[in-house]
């Protein structure tokens, strides 16, 4: 089945130690998104890629970076994690808007990040 895969599902890192989260998709969607979701809160968009074009949200801290080496893969890098970065990180994909095709976002299972 076509899907969005995130690895690892659980990640523990130390305060200030860089960490990379991975997302891959078999849906062949050209848009990929990264969200941060803290307990009992709405998912918060960090940034997205439209093909290779990177779009950062204005309030996303510089500590968060992303890479998309090809259509299928996207990475979230947290350069110096702080305690406040502990959260669930969600990857999502969608088709683009052109042609009024369906543009629902499909989410992966998430990576739960713990910072010690």
């Amino acid at each position, binding site marked *: 089945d076509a899907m969005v895969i995130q690895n690892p599902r659980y990640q523990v890192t130390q305060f200030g130690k860089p960490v990379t989260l991975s997302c891959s998709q078999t849906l062949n969607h050209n848009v990929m998104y990264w969200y941060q979701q803290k307990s009992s809160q709405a998912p918060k968009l960090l940034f997205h890629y439209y093909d290779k074009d990177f779009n950062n949200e204005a309030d996303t801290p510089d500590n968060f970076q992303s890479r998309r080496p090809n259509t299928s893969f996207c990475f979230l890098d947290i350069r110096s994690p702080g305690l406040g970065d502990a959260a669930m990180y969600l990857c999502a994909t969608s088709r683009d808007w052109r042609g009024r095709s*369906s543009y629902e976002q499909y989410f992966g299972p998430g990576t739960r990040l713990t910072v010690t």
Partner: protein
Amino acid sequence: EDQVTQSPEALRLQEGESSSLNCSYTVSGLRGLFWYRQDPGKGPEFLFTLYSAGEEKEKERLKATLTKKESFLHITAPKPEDSATYLCAVCRGYGGATNKLIFGTGTLLAVQP
């Protein structure tokens, strides 16, 4: 400012007791409204997209409706397996060919046997 408000924050139902969840929104350039289900520790699972006022979608015990200011998710004769957080999100253009979802904080539904 774009805003999505869901109510109630939490809802406890007995099995078979029908009810509705509300999502009210203000957004410029609405491209659609989405409902997702989220189980604890998992990513949101897509349920419905509604594009225009008056539209309705159904799936098993769930029915979603849309007006110009709000959407309802009606749950008919719920079962314990319907227990989850239900998220509403509005979609607006982001510039160019991509779109942006603005989420509400969800309604936590618990259905007791």
